């Protein structure tokens, strides 16, 4: 058979990366978005998202990739993925009106044999309610990881496919496309697949919450979580790739959405989900870790301090600032001058009355009483502790993700505060 043509409706972070990944596997791809300006920018090679290797891969596969703002162009496709964003509010609740509208537009544009696959995050029950023949309607779990999205799109661990009837073979074109990735296929009923996505995220949050809880305890009893985590990873029941790095709470929006969905469904059905509520509480607590250090170690000694902040994105290698701990911290520092630097995110996204955009990381540190490295961008690892010490007015380096070498920071005469280990003001780790 000839290779199927793959369509992606919604050139979002997910849609764009998935489209480029499909083209990389040799398929002709049609990327549709109603936003003609966005389509034009992408066609011209100006990617609206930051993702390692994305731009290069898109150039490599350009001959198989086409982008359009015309719905009718999707008629050439054998499979059309719905890959729009599903926005969330502050409580992590999804607004599915946009995706419903997109699906309503796309269905009439499909070829009569074409398969529709919902790729974005939806609540259990969503896919089954869509107005399309069950034989042509599927839900596929996406496992986009910001900053590692290309790797995830080109080398997936498995495909989880929600179907009306998992006992029936997948349509030939859809199976051919998925087989090209050479990973296991797990067909299951729609609701199971929709919940599987949530289950994956709940497990990740559980690991991170355990790490956060015990990292905080480590800080208080003289342990060092970075010494403990490798021991856990060697335990097969926990796993080498488990999420054991402590962080500043859950951010990015997707994990929060799934926790909110479980809480909502549990409340509606009467199932017990207090552990999920605890994850949410722990996340909220961890988000303010740096703020507590700032008050305890800096402002308690120098009420008129000035601050340098490195990183605004919610994590490295992304432009996303959704629920970013850095922005949360800066919002709480309004009475004090703050200099910021992020390799990608402009300082203009930060509402702060005394904010200065610095041209480099070192310039953000200059004159500061405390430097906060709030996003672990790789380029921050190149900072030289002695240069920081010379540039800064004070000695506090609040480095939750241990971007800098603690020994080098201490040798430079700075106090290093990092997640999972207690630090005295004299700078020596306890």
């Amino acid at each position, binding site marked *: 058979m000839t290779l199927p043509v793959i369509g992606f409706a919604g050139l979002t972070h997910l849609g764009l990366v998935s489209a480029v990944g499909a083209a990389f596997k040799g398929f002709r791809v049609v990327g549709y978005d109603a936003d003609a300006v966005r389509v034009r920018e992408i066609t011209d090679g100006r990617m609206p998202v930051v993702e390692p290797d994305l731009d290069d891969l898109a150039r490599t596969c350009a001959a198989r990739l086409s982008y359009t703002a015309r719905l009718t162009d999707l008629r050439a496709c054998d499979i059309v993925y719905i890959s729009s964003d599903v926005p969330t509010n502050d409580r992590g609740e999804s607004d599915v009106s946009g995706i419903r509208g997109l699906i309503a537009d796309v269905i009439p544009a499909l070829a009569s044999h074409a398969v529709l696959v919902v790729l974005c995050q939806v609540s259990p029950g969503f896919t089954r309610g869509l107005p399309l023949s069950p034989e042509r309607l599927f839900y596929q779990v996406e496992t986009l990881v910001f900053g590692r999205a290309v790797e995830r799109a080109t080398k997936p661990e498995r495909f989880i496919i929600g179907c009306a009837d998992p006992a029936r073979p997948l349509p030939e074109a859809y199976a051919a496309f998925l087989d090209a990735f050479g990973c296991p296929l797990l067909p299951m009923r729609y609701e199971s697949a929709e919940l599987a996505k949530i289950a994956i995220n709940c497990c990740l949050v559980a690991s991170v919450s355990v790490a956060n809880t015990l990292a905080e305890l480590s800080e208080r009893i003289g342990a060092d979580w970075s010494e403990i985590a490798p021991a856990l990873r060697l335990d097969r029941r926990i796993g080498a790739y488990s999420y054991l790095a402590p962080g500043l709470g859950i951010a990015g929006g997707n994990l929060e959405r799934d926790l909110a969905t479980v809480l909502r469904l549990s409340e509606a059905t009467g199932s017990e989900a207090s552990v999920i509520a605890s994850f949410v509480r722990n996340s909220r*607590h961890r988000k303010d870790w740096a703020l507590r250090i700032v008050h305890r170690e800096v402002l308690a000694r120098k009420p008129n301090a000035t601050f340098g902040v490195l990183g605004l994105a919610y994590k490295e290698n992304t432009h996303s600032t959704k629920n970013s701990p850095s922005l949360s911290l800066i919002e709480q520092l309004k009475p004090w001058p703050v200099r910021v630097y992020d390799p990608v995110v402009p300082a203009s996204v930060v509402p702060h009355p005394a904010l200065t955009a610095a041209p480099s990381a070192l310039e953000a540190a200059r004159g500061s009483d405390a430097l906060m490295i709030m996003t672990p961008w790789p380029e921050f690892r190149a900072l030289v502790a002695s240069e920081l010490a010379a540039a800064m007015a004070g000695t506090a380096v609040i480095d939750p993700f241990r971007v800098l070498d603690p020994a080098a920071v201490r040798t430079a005469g700075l106090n290093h505060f990092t997640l999972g280990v207690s630090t005295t003001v004299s700078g020596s780790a306890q």
Partner: protein
Amino acid sequence: MLEHLHTKPVKPRRVVVVGAGGFVGGAIARELARDGVPVLGLTRKEVDLTADGAAAAVTEKLEPEDSVVFVSALAPARTSAMLLQNLCMAEAVGQALSARPVAHLLYISSDAVYADDANPVTERSCCQPSSLHGMMHAARELMLKTDVKVPLAILRPSLLYGARDPHNGYGPNRFRRLAEKGETITLFGEGEEQRDHIYIDDVARLVALVLSHRSRGTLNVATGVSTSFREIAEKVVSLSGKRPEIRGTPRQNPITHRHFDITDCLKTFPQFRYTPLQDGLTRAVQPGAS
């Protein structure tokens, strides 16, 4: 979490302190007076909240532009009768404020409203009092929220201490009195329990801040640092200049601690600083020292 209706502080027109004769109310009235805020202090002498007609008596004292601090309580409420009396007092204040709404109401509650195992306590911790005193404050909070239709701020202080404290509860106040007399300080067990102790002036300062921002919502009043009773006793003895014995006793009850996560306070009043325990104890033990 508190929400500021005045982003920038505005001096209240007048503050009516209901319970100005007490340890906390007196400190609040003095703090406000120092700030140049007109204060009408109501003590039991002016208005007996347990008496018939109390609501009308309070009502006639109120002006629409007033801010009201309700701090009066028969505390600690150890019996059912005291619980009911305290609720009657809150009913009277609620009726008065319903009859004559004011600009702002601030209620001084207590951290006793929280469950004993709520560590670390935040403003979102479960309210599940294990004492009549805690239940009294929880009930009063709810009564005021229900009955009074003006912006309401609730402060929930942890354990308070200060030179003027008339109570003799286990902790800094009792310890300093014993130390001053050179008498033995007896601990429960070895005094291992950790609590968050607040210097009285800090409560008064926070009240002034809440009033000037016309804040509404709930805020705990705690330093974020908990200290064992033994350490408190040792500090007090050291400051007293006397050498009383600190004596442990066989433990009767399991050790319980209370810790606070004060992040909400850091966000609400970022430039406010609590008095460090050593400084506060110094002022309490040696009132003339500062």
